């Protein structure tokens, strides 16, 4: 018997979630047509329960002070237009239901039988002048049809039917546990289809093949595979072997473009430029080398102090976030947390960071994935809100402070957003008698899978067919994030099991699932034997190949010596964590997989990892001739100064920072928001060890607006700014390390490859010049969208080539930390570094274009990084900071001196009066995004010491901080800018005012 418990607030004004949805719907253009939204939480119980038990369950699931409930009865509401119920599709992880089951079992002191189902769902009661089509639109906004079911009833239908019917989303899978042999002696056209569309799963009732999803194996790869199976194994591969090869050899896992020989760089970009730079820096630093583990593990690690290492990793989750912004972002952040837990013997995540590249959230021009206005892509605003929410839930629920991040807006991110997520970790340098960054599975160790169960979610990453999403079949495409499951095993492993030395090795299950994690660890000892039927699954009926490559989230793979298994198992069970022995590591040289005793995969491990043929790539130079921007003779500088602050790329995004818990773990030092007016910070500092004064500083930088003009300068600017940001908060240059994330587009295009090569070359040159090594990196090469506009015309949108540089540094003592906030009236202002006149690609240039003040087709010059000169300045900055001679520092970046001056003033609501030299136009002075520069304030008592310390570097006195809360910029007799700070603050808060939570 199916029962339905519906829980709701006693009074509508308590129902904030309903009000929030009302606001959201108004924001989506349904203004006024929805008058109220009320919510009910529904628990569907399928099984034999007494009336008293149901009553008790409802009481346990609600709070009588604020809630009411009904059992097997419709909620009575006076006036509403439609009821909309959203629940999960069969097989989708339902955490609320699992918690409810545990609560009921505890209460009744009995285990509920496995066939007693518990499911959660939510009903939205909507009132207003709505049509069914409106409600369908609302439903698509509130639900994700890939993982959720939608049920709509008008009030009349609701009353006639006595409410919503109970729905039991039970999975009913046909047993398809067979293993197929895939013949490779087939025609060329068939081979091509196999590579592109994948293995034929079955034929539909029209006799057409239904494919399992792309293998992304092109002809040269297939040829090698054909050759291997024909001449080495003397047989055809099984489906699981082919799927496994496709996962292992994917661009995602093997970074084939970065590994390929490209023009004269025969070693490949990664080895020559990225790894090459780090190797040079490490060699030059000798015993002062800060690097401990670079490019070999799930994260990179540098020395924190004698006792600890800090690790860092930044990932992207772009494609999943385009389809399911919340799901993509939460699995992104929780996934990169696992790169920390999976570092060495297991590091503890101590800091999250994020970076989002979106299109303008006010852009509501629809685009479609399919012709005929089908498969509409999500609107930029929906993507933005979903992604922000996903990182919030992932980070906050995991108890990891999310301290640092950015948002960049450009219309070219409309087809695909970029979602960067990063995690810094902390690990003692030694675990017992062993260096913590070294790990090695040994032959005979058990292969243990820990964490969530395996389901059909996330098979073939983001590829899916709509056929798979009809009733009764589980959702396959989207991964579901469950931070609490991960928090439980993360605590258990990193806080207990690691220090008891219960396992030899650990890695996370990310892309490719077990097929990649187990095969990767098998390299440490030389083989593995997996019994796939032992892998715990979410439901019966999964095929072996699906179990092997599923990317179901929240799982780690461990190598556990048999003698430790009992103890580990007891520990895991005690903390509510599932762990299962699924095989053992061997030294057979083979990757062997069995299913119910039958061998389904048996391949040479070396071929699996190293068999793929090397690529040879050619580029095509597409250097752009740049010429200086020709500014109109007279520009309204004062207006433009003010307007700059209300641009999406400069304005306050404090509504994001305040949603993220940046204080948890108790080590926060320099926060994401500065001063009483909460101005966005560019770098943050935490103290990861509670009783130590030592800090970890993090920042990020990117200049996608420069990419098409000069990719080398783009990369140089990104590195320079990411480094400068850390110097500005008090971090010494020699303690800074870098991470690279390349998000490219159309990477088969030789012109794009040339830009890629230029960018990588700059990474090498600048990193070596500053002595700041790369310790980890990741690339995502195809961020392109091909679809249709509202008139059904084809549109292609590619992201601008985007290089994100993340910086990580160690500050010896947090008394050295500075913010950018002006401190007191009378403090002196200086510009350190030499201003660049270049305005090409600047936010100012974009503003002039948007305002119609610039003739089209102008490129402008792009700011250059002059490493030799800058390095001298940076070493002096470190001295100034160490001597405490600067009260505030703000690096010049997007928005130039204007942005730096305004933000520094706004922080505490102070003013400033500066005077600029008359050797150039004021626009160059205020708005050029000069590299190598800092705006610095100095206490009047330190004037002498400061000026003598900066005698040998470019340092220009600008003026003073003032108490009259107004910003003034004069040049000769002309007052170019005079803006009250309150006015500036209003402009700064304007772009995202609609998202602020008041």
């Amino acid at each position: 018997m199916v029962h339905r418990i519906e829980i709701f607030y006693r009074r509508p004004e308590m129902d904030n979630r309903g009000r929030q949805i009302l606001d959201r719907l108004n924001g989506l253009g349904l203004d006024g047509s929805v008058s109220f939204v009320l919510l009910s939480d529904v628990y569907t119980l399928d099984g034999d329960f007494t009336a008293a038990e149901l009553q008790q369950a409802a009481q346990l699931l609600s709070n009588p002070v604020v809630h009411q409930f009904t059992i097997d009865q419709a909620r009575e509401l006076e006036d509403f237009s439609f009821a909309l119920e959203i629940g999960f599709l069969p097989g989708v992880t339902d955490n609320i239901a699992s918690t409810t089951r545990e609560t009921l079992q505890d209460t009744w002191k009995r285990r509920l039988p496995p066939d007693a189902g518990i499911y959660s769902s939510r009903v939205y009661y909507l009132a207003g002048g709505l049509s069914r089509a409106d409600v369908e639109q609302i439903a698509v906004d509130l639900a994700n049809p890939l993982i959720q079911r939608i049920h709509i009833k008008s009030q009349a239908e609701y009353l006639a039917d006595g409410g919503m019917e109970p729905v039991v989303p039970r999975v009913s899978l046909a047993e398809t546990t067979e293993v197929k042999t895939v013949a490779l002696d087939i025609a060329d056209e068939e081979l091509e289809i196999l590579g592109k569309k994948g293995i034929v799963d079955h034929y539909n009732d029209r006799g057409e093949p239904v494919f399992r999803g792309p293998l992304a194996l092109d002809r040269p790869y297939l040829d090698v595979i054909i050759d291997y199976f024909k001449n080495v194994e003397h047989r055809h591969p099984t489906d699981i072997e082919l799927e496994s090869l496709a996962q292992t050899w994917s661009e995602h896992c093997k970074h084939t473009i970065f590994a390929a020989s490209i023009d004269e760089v025969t070693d490949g970009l990664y080895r020559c430029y990225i790894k090459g730079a780090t190797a040079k820096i490490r060699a030059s630093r000798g015993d002062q080398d800060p690097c401990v583990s670079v490019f070999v593990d799930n994260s990179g690690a540098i020395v924190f102090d004698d006792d600890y290492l800090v690790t860092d990793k930044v990932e992207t989750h772009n494609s999943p976030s385009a389809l399911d912004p919340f799901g993509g972002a939460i699995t992104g952040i929780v996934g990169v947390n696992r790169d920390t837990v999976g570092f060495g013997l297991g590091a503890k995540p101590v800091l999250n960071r994020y970076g989002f590249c979106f299109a303008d959230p006010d852009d509501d021009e629809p685009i479609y994935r399919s012709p005929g206005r089908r498969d509409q892509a999500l609107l930029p605003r929906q993507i933005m809100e979903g992604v922000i929410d996903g990182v919030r839930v992932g980070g906050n629920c995991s108890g990891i402070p999310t301290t640092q991040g950015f948002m960049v807006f450009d219309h070219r991110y409309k087809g695909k957003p970029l979602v960067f997520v990063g995690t810094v970790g902390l690990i003692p340098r030694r675990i017992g008698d062993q260096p913590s960054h070294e790990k090695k599975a040994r032959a005979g160790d058990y292969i243990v899978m820990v964490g969530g169960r395996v389901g059909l979610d996330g098979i073939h990453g983001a590829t899916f067919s709509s056929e798979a999403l009809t009733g009764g079949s589980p959702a396959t495409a989207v991964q579901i994030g469950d931070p609490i499951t991960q928090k439980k095993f993360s605590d258990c492993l990193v806080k207990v099991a690691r220090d008891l030395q219960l396992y030899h090795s650990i890695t996370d299950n990310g892309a490719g699932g077990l097929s990649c994690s187990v095969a990767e660890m098998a390299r440490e000892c030389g083989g593995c034997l997996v019994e796939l039927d032992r892998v715990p699954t979410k439901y019966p009926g999964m095929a072996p190949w699906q179990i092997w490559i599923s990317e179901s989230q929240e799982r780690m793979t461990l190598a556990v010596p048999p003698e430790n298994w009992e103890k580990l198992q007891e520990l895991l069970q005690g903390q509510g964590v599932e762990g299962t022995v699924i095989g053992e590591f061997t030294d057979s040289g083979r990757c062997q997989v069995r299913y119910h005793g039958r061998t389904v995969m048996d391949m040479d491990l070396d071929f699996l990892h190293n068999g793929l043929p090397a690529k040879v790539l050619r580029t095509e130079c597409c250097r752009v001739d740049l010429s200086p921007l020709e500014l109109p003779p007279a520009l309204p500088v004062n207006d433009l100064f003010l307007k700059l602050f209300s641009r999406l790329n400069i304005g306050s995004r404090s509504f994001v920072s305040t949603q993220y818990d940046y204080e948890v773990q108790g080590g926060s030092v320099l926060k994401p928001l500065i001063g009483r007016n909460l101005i966005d910070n560019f770098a943050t500092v935490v103290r990861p060890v509670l009783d130590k004064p030592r800090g970890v500083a993090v920042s990020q930088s990117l200049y996608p607006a420069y990419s098409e003009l000069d990719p080398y300068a783009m990369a140089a600017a990104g590195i320079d700014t990411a480094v400068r940001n850390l110097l500005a908060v008090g971090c010494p240059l020699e303690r800074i390390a870098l991470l690279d994330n390349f998000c490219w587009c159309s990477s088969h295009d030789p012109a794009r490859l040339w830009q890629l090569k230029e960018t990588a070359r700059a990474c090498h040159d600048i990193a070596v010049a500053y002595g700041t090594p790369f310790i980890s990196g990741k690339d995502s090469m195809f961020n392109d969208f091909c679809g249709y506009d509202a008139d059904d015309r084809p549109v292609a949108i590619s992201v601008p080539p985007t290089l994100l540089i993340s910086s990580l540094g160690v500050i010896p003592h947090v008394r050295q930390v500075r913010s950018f906030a002006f401190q007191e009236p009378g403090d002196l202002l200086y510009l350190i570094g030499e201003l660049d006149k270049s305005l090409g690609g600047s936010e100012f240039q974009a503003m002039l274009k948007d305002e119609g003040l610039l003739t089209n087709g102008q490129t402008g010059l792009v700011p250059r990084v002059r490493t030799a000169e800058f390095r001298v300045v940076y070493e002096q900055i470190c001295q100034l900071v160490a001597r405490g001679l600067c009260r505030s520092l703000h690096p010049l970046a997007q928005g130039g001196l204007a942005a730096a001056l305004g933000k520094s003033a706004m922080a505490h609501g102070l003013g400033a009066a500066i005077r600029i030299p008359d050797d150039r136009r004021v626009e160059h002075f205020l708005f050029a995004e000069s590299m190598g520069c800092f705006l610095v304030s100095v206490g009047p008592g330190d004037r002498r010491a400061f000026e003598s310390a900066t005698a040998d570097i470019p340092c220009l006195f600008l003026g003073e901080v003032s108490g009259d809360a107004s910003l003034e910029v004069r040049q000769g007799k002309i007052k170019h800018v005079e803006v009250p700070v309150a006015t500036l603050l209003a402009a700064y808060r304007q772009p995202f005012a609609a998202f602020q939570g008041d």
Partner: protein
Amino acid sequence: MASPRVLLLTGYGINCEEETAFAFSRCGARCRIVHVNDLIADPGQLGQAQIFVVPGGFSYGDDTGSGNALANKMRNTLWPELMDFVLKDHLVLGICNGFQVLVNLGLLPGFAGAYGERRAALIANLSSRYECRWVELLVPENRSVFLRGLDRLSIPIAHGEGRFYAPDDVVRQLQGGGNVAMVYADQSGKPAAGRFPENPNGSLGDIAAICDDSGRILGMMPHPERALVLSQLPSWPDMTARRAPGQWDDPGPGFSLFQNAVDYFSR
């Protein structure tokens, strides 16, 4: 008397146990962090402690209501030991999610020792948004031993469901009986009167913390462990810039709360 023993709960998404233990240790207490399941397996451990803490976090991911699932778990498995504990001269502290747990357990408000009865709730913030920000708090005259000698505090909150709600008569009884331990205030120290962001969640009566009639059980939404030392404060970079006196680990505004708890046992 020797320094008191503190038992801090962890597991299932609790995530502030380490820094909260650190705060008590700094004040001289002896701390043990114990997993919920280990406590259930050996509830006698509770009897060895003098202070029981339910730290902040996301127990059970807020499923079935924030703090509700963990409260259900504790009621089902630890109730006799909990009653035994609170009826002795012991202290209980619930911070953030821990406050939500204590309210769902009915340990708060616990008027006249009526423990177990739910009389209040912490519901979704009026802004319908998770809020992490520093707030000003006013400490009215109240019964809590944790807040002795304190009148104002500046410490952070971080929660999505912190809006204190109770029927009018309960709110009046709390206010009249010295059970309101902290209220959200503006910069000048006056109650926020419901205004955002001074009152960050829309709590009735600006209530940020309440205590039971014994004054030995305190539940609070703000996080005192995040304002334990000076280097945690938003003004730290201003202090360093101005070479203000004070070391990075000198006591911050949250320190006294822990010190009061520890001192309670050295009377």
